[in-house]
């Protein structure tokens, strides 16, 4: 769809708006409806929109897979480590009272951290799910190419793949 000017222009306006809205939902969750789960899904939808309009490959460049896997783990770890931090400060696991100067500010810091962890996990999980489902066809093609490469005799296959690669790049 990247050759369609209407969709391209509107998406360039809408994607930052969607991300801004996700951040609003994430950090306004204490005062209105919202929180990490909703914000994560909305944030992921911005990446999904980007990938749907500009193609999967460019979508992957915006948010690389390795970074995304790290983000999935980092979100869960942030949640768990918040609990461990309160454990080290002498309270129970996930008891945020001790994180700040007063109990109330401690609760605020704890909830902010935990919600951020949830948002990070949910957003990157949704992006990963979308790219896995949408990239399945390319994955199968690559796998079959690899199989053909393995089955053919080494010198013949080498020239073949080289030719293919050159053709694909040009």
């Amino acid at each position, binding site marked *: *769809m990247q050759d*369609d000017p*209407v*969709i391209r222009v*509107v998406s360039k*306006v*809408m994607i930052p*708006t969607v991300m801004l809205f996700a951040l609003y939902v994430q950090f306004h969750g204490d005062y209105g409806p919202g929180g990490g789960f909703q914000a994560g899904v909305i944030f992921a939808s911005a990446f999904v929109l980007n990938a749907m309009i500009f193609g999967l490959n460019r979508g992957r460049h915006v948010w690389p897979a390795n970074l995304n896997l790290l983000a999935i783990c980092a979100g869960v770890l942030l949640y768990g480590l918040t609990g461990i931090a309160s454990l080290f400060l002498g309270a129970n696991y996930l008891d945020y009272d001790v994180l700040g100067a007063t109990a109330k500010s401690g609760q605020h810091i704890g909830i902010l951290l935990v919600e951020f962890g949830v948002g990070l996990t949910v957003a990157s999980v949704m992006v990963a799910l979308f790219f896995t489902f949408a990239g399945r066809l390319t994955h199968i093609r690559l796998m079959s190419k690899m199989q053909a490469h393995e089955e053919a005799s080494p010198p013949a296959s080498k020239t073949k793949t080289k030719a293919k690669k050159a053709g694909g790049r040009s």
Partner: protein
Amino acid sequence: MSALEITQLIGIASLLIGSLAVIFGALGLLRLGDVYQRMHGAGIVDTGGAGLILFGLLMLSPDWTVTVRLILIGFILVMTGPTATHAIARAVRVSDQEPDNVSETKTKKRGRG
């Protein structure tokens, strides 16, 4: 009649007209023939229905924070609604679905007459 009452009246009237527009748009979506025709029904819901309902809510809004939010919602609707309709039309065109030849037969008849 004070200015406040007049704005309220305008708001309620545009809410009612907006709801009617939504209902007619839905009817069109159900009753019209092919995809291209049905999109006209969807267009009424997108612009006429949602726009008039938003305008009515703006007239009735009690607070400036609500007004700001409604204007933002209106901005997003104006951006996304027509684009979505455009994307659907494009998808139908790309998938090689020809429109029902209603207009073509009519012009042929006219040419004969």
